[in-house]
């Protein structure tokens, strides 16, 4: 999993499945800034376990007055959000966009 060193920026792995969940969880927890920018441009698979981490992270950021931004996003990522019934606004906060 290749993370950017930039403190508020995180590049998501290509396959966000069961095996990626633990490391994504750790990565998200290390970001203490209320504003997190995620690069989902390379995501080819977004599984439900990683989705729930992103949802929790978005809530976390909001609680701290910030939010998530997702850019760029791969088609696969958007398609998965659609399938899961997750509107982008659920993850990405207006103020933060």
């Amino acid at each position, binding site marked *: 999993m290749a993370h950017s060193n930039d403190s508020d920026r995180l590049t998501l792995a290509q396959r966000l499945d069961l095996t990626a969940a633990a490391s994504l969880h750790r990565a998200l927890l290390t970001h203490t800034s209320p504003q997190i920018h995620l690069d989902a441009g390379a995501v080819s698979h977004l599984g439900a376990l990683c989705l729930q981490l992103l949802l929790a992270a978005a809530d976390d950021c909001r609680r701290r007055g910030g939010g998530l931004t997702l850019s760029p996003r791969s088609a696969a990522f958007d398609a*998965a959000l659609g399938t899961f*019934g997750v509107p982008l606004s659920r993850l990405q906060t207006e103020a933060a966009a």
Partner: protein
Amino acid sequence: MTQTDDPLAAIRTSFFQECEELLEQLADALADPAFAATAPDQVNAAFRAVHSVKGGAASFELDQLSAFAHRFENTFDDLRAGRRRVDPALMRRILPAADHLSFLIEAARAGRTCVDRSDLLQALDQSENPASGDWFIRFRPTAALYATGNEPLHILNALLELGDARIDLSTETLPHLSDINPEEGYLSWQLRLPGTIAEQALRDCFDFVEDVCDLQITRAVGPALSQAKATADARRSAPAAGDGPTVRIDLDRIDRLMNLVGELVIGQSMLEQTIAPALANSHSPARTAFDTLTSLTSDLQDSVMAIRAQPVKPLFQRMSRILRDAAAVAGKEATIRFLGEMTEVDRSIIEGLTEPLTHMIRNAVDHGLEKPADRRALGKPTCGTVTLSAAHRVGRVLIELFDDGAGIDRARVRAVAVDRGLIDHDQRLTDAETDALLFHPGFSTAQAVTSLSGRGVGLDVVRAALSRLGGRITIESQPGQGTRFQLSLPLTLAVTDGMALRSGGQILLLPLASIRETVRVRGADIRRLDDGTELMQIRGQLVSLCDVAAVLGLPESTPHHDHSVAVLVADEDGRQAALIVDEIIDQRQVVIKGLRTNCGPVAGIAAATILGDGRVALILDPGDMVRRAGSPAVPPSETERLAG
């Protein structure tokens, strides 16, 4: 509700009359097979009919009716505009809505409001959820689902391939990021999918994960479900209109099936007699098995009867047209109202009812309902109402025809009866006896000869036709309030209620519908005329005697009538005779078997049936017996010579 001097009332009345025509046009358009193919003519006709109802309703401020018609009309507008097409699912929703439209009109006419059925309209609007309620799925993966390498994304994608789904994610149980166990599942989904999808197809999507997730698959509640219930209700009252695939069956095949079931019943009672000792103990296995067989046979019989059964609605609708024509000719205003029109009756009965009901409707318009001016003077609505209702009552079907007209003019009936020599001028009659004179052959109280009456067609014809169907008719009238005819009919012509008699060593059956009463014969009551005719005094009336065994040339006829039983029967024209038999055995339902095809006509006999022991018993023809009563019996020896 009607102000007699209100000009609006007249317009209102004509609006409701027009509504009836519009409903018929709507029904015709919907019934046309072309409508199912979204043919423009039929769709337009349906649209215009509903549109006209809406327009009229709005101008009379019948808000409930106009609102319903407005939304109902939209459906046809969409069809006209090609935004939708007719499919079986839509047809199934249009028909109840059309029915409700007629209920609303009826309610508006009576100044009532009707139950709100906007669910019918909602169902129409939801073209994507046809036959039944949408599927409603709750899906909550557990950690085990993820641990076994399964992925909700794939499951959800598979469901999406089945049809348009609405997916809602629930994150209610999602903890804070720091508290999350990354391998635990916290998310759950709620999905709504079209009800047309087979449940198995849905379940297949959850193959291998059903035990590692919380899963509920149900039919969704809401408008779609109430539609499903409405369909189920409609099906209960009208199997033919139910959903699901249907087949057309040759009537002969059903009749054959019905015959076989009849055989089964007979075979069963033969078996019962044969193994009677084994059945004596009510706890024996044989008894239990036999009882099961009996109940299955009876269910089977009911099911076969149900195949032949049809709702009386089309018959009633035909009467609506007859009423309109009759009213137009008679210069009267009349409207018809149906109750229980989904009641099912064997088709043979329905066919046989058309003629008598037509007579009765004409009779109600002609003799029952008053002229509009007279009604106004009486403070009645100018438009008379004829109510036609049908219901099942203890194994028979009861049809009632009620008109809110003047009731029977008993003084006039009496005068006519005296005039025609039907009764003596000083004969005292109860109201019921007077009313019964209407059924006397040739009786007609029509004051004016119109194209409807004056044909010498009276209620006797009605009674004769009903009697052929094994039916009975009774009349009940309140002066100034109206007249009520009650018709009681068997559910089918294949089975009849009969009285089993013994005469000349044979068991004979007499249709119950023809029997007036039974009396014990005392020699003193019998008068013998010079020509050998015997008469018997029953309740002050002299009735010709008919010794069944002698008249039919049965071998063991008893010469003395003393201690035998007389059964007073009436033929279709009300002519009576007292049939002398040795004994009355019981009353029973029998399956009617035709004789004519194989045996040709048989004197005094209408048909045959098969007894419990497998032997054939003959069913007497009451009409023929009455004709034979009084005429001296032909001795068997002479018959033989004639036949040789």
